[in-house]
């Protein structure tokens, strides 16, 4: 049992017990009991992103939700589905794919990452971002509160303004205001065909300018990702281009061909040294996107520290230029249309890592953005807030916590400002 429990360690803290509900009703009664005993609870999905967050103040029980893994309903003709929080992203997408649909929700390590965990983290992956962020695809949610009560909001329809949109609190809330138990999603039909263009560039500014040209051009990319050669090498990709741009497009045959053509022209006009095309269902194409999604989270690419930077799209180039002067071995993956830059630092000592992170945040904030440190050694976490500064809305956020979890039972201390 000890070895099993140690698998639930978060930032060096190991719980006394693991709770494993297999139904929402189980979850409710376990949470009520934990609440009565004032246990500090860490909700646990696939455990893929437990590195994220400030260190827990207290940690008595891991709440493993993988037993809540059912698809409650999938209504293909209505493009909606309701699932339990513990189902993995891969299992859900596989089931939807069989009916020619998908939910615009992706995560690193999708065969382990759960729907609940992915929503609690709330960040968008590179895939299908055209269809929205995680918060945009949720149409209803059942949450088990810190006091063990189950509450629901939203519904199973795509257009609804009945009551407050409570799910918003929990998407990106890191399980600090309630435990996501069940979620209803809006689904999208899969494109008839998909293709990816992978292109190589001699410099970062060229690659970023090319990516922005694609973003503003006639094509409607489903995914648009740029990455440096260090990232490419860590993913064991052949070639030696300084920067690469990957663009995924989809549609019916004629519109796809036109998009590919226009996209290729834009990439070449911005100096692409080469442009390779991959077509679904070529496993090389799905493999490329899996590697890009998993980057920084799978074993071979795992960094010492990493920052998720959010900027307006036009600032990515300037941000990366400013980062040139920071010493240390790093790899960069960026989703320019979404304004996300993921910076990973490797093998650096704690002092250098701390400096790299603080500079990253400084530059991001100066350019009007923010930086969340997604991976950070526990020793460093003591001296910084991995989330950054929520500024003038922090007071309201603190009161949210007081209202929904007055006993500070759910992930205490792990969220922004020590919430």
């Amino acid at each position: 049992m000890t070895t099993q429990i140690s698998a639930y360690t978060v930032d060096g803290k190991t719980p006394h017990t693991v709770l494993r509900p297999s139904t929402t009703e189980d979850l409710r009664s376990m949470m009520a009991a934990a609440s009565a005993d004032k246990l500090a609870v860490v909700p646990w999905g696939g455990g893929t992103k437990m590195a994220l967050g400030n260190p827990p103040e207290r940690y008595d029980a891991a709440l493993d939700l993988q037993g809540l893994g059912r698809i409650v309903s999938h209504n293909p003709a209505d493009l909606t589905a309701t699932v339990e929080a513990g189902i993995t992203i891969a299992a859900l997408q596989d089931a939807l794919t069989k009916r020619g649909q998908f939910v615009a929700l992706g995560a690193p390590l999708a065969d382990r990452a759960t729907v609940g965990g992915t929503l609690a983290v709330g960040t968008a992956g590179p895939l299908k971002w055209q269809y929205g962020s995680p918060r945009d695809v949720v149409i209803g949610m059942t949450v088990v509160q810190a006091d063990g009560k189950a509450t629901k909001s939203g519904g199973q329809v795509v257009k609804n303004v009945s009551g407050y949109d409570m799910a918003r609190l929990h998407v990106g809330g890191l399980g600090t205001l309630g435990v996501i138990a069940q979620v209803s999603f809006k689904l999208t039909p899969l494109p008839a065909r998909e293709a990816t263009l992978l292109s190589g560039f001699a410099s970062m500014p060229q690659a970023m300018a090319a990516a922005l040209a694609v973003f503003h051009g006639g094509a409607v990319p489903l995914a648009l990702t740029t990455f440096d050669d260090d990232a490419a090498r860590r993913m064991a990709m052949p070639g030696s281009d300084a920067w690469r741009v990957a663009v995924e497009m989809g549609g019916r045959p004629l519109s796809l061909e036109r998009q590919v053509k226009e996209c290729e022209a834009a990439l070449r006009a911005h100096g692409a040294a080469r442009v390779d095309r991959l077509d679904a269902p070529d496993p090389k194409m799905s493999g490329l996107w899996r590697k890009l999604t998993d980057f920084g989270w799978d074993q071979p690419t795992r960094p010492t520290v990493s920052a998720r930077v959010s900027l307006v799209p036009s600032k990515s180039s300037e941000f990366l230029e400013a980062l040139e002067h920071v010493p240390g071995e790093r790899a960069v993956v960026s989703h320019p249309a979404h304004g996300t830059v993921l910076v990973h630092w490797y093998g650096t000592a704690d002092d250098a890592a701390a400096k790299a992170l603080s500079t990253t945040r400084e530059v991001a904030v100066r350019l009007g953005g923010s930086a969340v440190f997604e991976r950070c050694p526990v020793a460093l976490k003591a001296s910084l807030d991995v989330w950054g500064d929520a500024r003038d809305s922090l007071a309201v956020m603190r009161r949210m916590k007081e209202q929904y979890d007055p006993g500070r039972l759910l992930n205490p201390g792990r969220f922004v400002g020590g919430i």
Partner: protein
Amino acid sequence: MAHEGLFQELKVVVGEEYVVHAPEDLVVFEYDGSVDKALPLAVVLPATTEQVSGVVKIARSHGVPIVPRGAGTGLSGGAIAAKGGIVVALTRMTRILEIDPVNRLAVVEPGVVNLELSMATAKYGLFFAPDPSSQKACTIGGNVAENSGGPHCLAYGVTTNHVLGMEVVLADGSVAWVGGRTRETPGYDLRGILIGSEGTLAITTKAVVRLVKLPEAVKTLLAIYPRLNDASAAVSDIIASGIVPAAIEMMDDLAIQAAEAAVHAGYPADAGAVLLVEVDGLKESVEVESALVEEVCRRHNPMEIRTAEDAAQRERLWAGRKGALGALGRLAPNYYLIDGTIPRTKLVEVMARIKEISAEAGLPIANVLHAGDGNLHPCILFDERKPGDTERTLEIGGRILKLCVDVGGVLTGEHGIGVEKQEYMPFMFTEDDMASMARLKLAFATDDAFNPGKVFPKGASCVDISQMKAVARAGAGAFV
């Protein structure tokens, strides 16, 4: 006057001419596009965030409620002073502060009219996607408060999908930003919580909105059916076929007759339903998808199919749909507009039930629907002068919403709960659900100062008589 001191303080902040409190001037702020009305103590028209903040502080110090208001086109009573107090009308804050075509966003004040924003961004090939039918009048601030939709939200999403951040004034008068210019910001998604909170938690003083590319091609198709069921089945088939059109709108026979009489759209007199489907995007895909839509529509035995390739033709096809609601006055002195959403697969079943309810009650119901996303707008036709008509109308309204919830749908798709549907909240939500929602007011420390008496049930189970009276007046300026 009892409130002279309050008025004086407000005048110092916003200027003499922007505090309205003479009874004859207040009357225009007594109602919005909905059924209810209530007279505020005063209406204040601030010009800046600082003035909004100042007004909030003064109102709070006097212990009077604050009701934010945009253009007053809302359809659930969101902008009326249900408990009196001060209406803060944001219609002087009308500047588009910035259009950033590279990052596809705009920064606007809350009083900017929805359509004017899209007109201003058109030269960059961009537009603001939420398009409520009142878009020529309604404001972005109002859209944020109500999480407005519109015919084209089927493909594009509703307001919450298109707002990146807001500057808001909180109940203590302090100013805070929620969200921002970037897609992700640290902390809880307060932006998402405030959008659709119906003015009960904060006042928006600036909004950063996403802009999307104008579609390269648009094709509109109008299919006329002898029976409503055929049109409903066609809608379900289109959704199930893997196409997501930009809009799928529907009207039933009564709505058609009214529209025909008013705008002469050229619909056959014996038409049972009209379906309007718009496909947009890249021209290659529009070509293929509109052909597929037409094929699906033909499978359900239409009387006729018309298509539009250009803006003028498109305008003609939409004329009947857009004019339908205003034309209902030709069929009855009054109508009551309902706004439920159902799963799209239940369309045939629910439309049949609504016909039955109408027959049982002896009151005609005309139906206008955003059929593509299952958003129904049954309009109950009645005559307030006939004894019992109003009561029966409200009773039927409740039954229809109950029906929507019972088939897996919801109380309101786009109009909001407001005061109109607050007593129906228990159809959808348990005490615990509503208690959890109500905690947001505590988290925002509003002390119930912002828009009190809305969204949550009052505790009484029956709708009060003042609301019944007000129904009689509904509709003249309503958009849907």
